[in-house]
């Protein structure tokens, strides 16, 4: 989605699952833009760009692999594109399952795959001027 993910969007997403009464546990991971301090310069925002077509194909593959491996009821993933300010949310991964452990493991694996496999790049914009390209650990 364009820009930051609003907390109200997350609440709506949770509320939609009240009718799915077979669910026993949800796990949610939220990525938030940090004010990293790099040699005296502060990150004020990250601007995300993507190879959108490939990212969508890859996300589809990741979904399939997670559903094949874990007995989850549903999974929702949103990654910001464009500018996200420090303190705002840039990633939302939401898994639900009958059993808590399945939801937690599926969510964690999905987050790792998103960071490693999705063709998305973050440009860390400094306060004032300048930038550097984000590097995932």
């Amino acid at each position: 989605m364009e820009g930051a993910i609003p907390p109200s969007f997350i609440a709506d997403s949770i509320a939609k699952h009240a009718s799915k009464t077979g669910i026993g546990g949800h796990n949610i991971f939220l990525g938030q833009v940090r004010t990293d301090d790099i040699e005296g310069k502060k990150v004020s925002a990250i601007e995300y760009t993507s190879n959108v077509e490939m990212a969508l194909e890859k996300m589809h593959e990741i979904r399939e692999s997670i559903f094949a491996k874990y007995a989850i009821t549903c999974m929702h993933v949103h990654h910001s594109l464009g500018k996200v300010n420090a303190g705002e949310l840039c990633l939302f991964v939401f898994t639900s399952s009958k059993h808590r452990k399945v939801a937690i493991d599926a969510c964690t694996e999905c987050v790792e795959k998103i960071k490693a496999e999705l063709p998305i790049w973050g440009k860390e914009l400094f306060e004032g001027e300048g930038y550097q390209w984000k590097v995932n650990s």
Partner: protein
Amino acid sequence: MTVEVQFFGQLIDKTGKSSIQIEHTASLTQLKEILFSDFPLLKGSKFIIAINNKMATEHSAIPKDAKIALMPPFSGG
């Protein structure tokens, strides 16, 4: 006969462009030679290459009308 080459992330800083049209070559090795000569800064950069949205290897053939993507290490999330 040309193919489209797209640059992403920090590679745009190195080439100054997000995409170019370039003469079709049979192999990726040949393509990279041309790119390195046109954009010397690319030479020291880490990237992977996709042809028509599929990851390519050194020996992948380049179809005519291919869309080629040069992508640096991902940093989403």
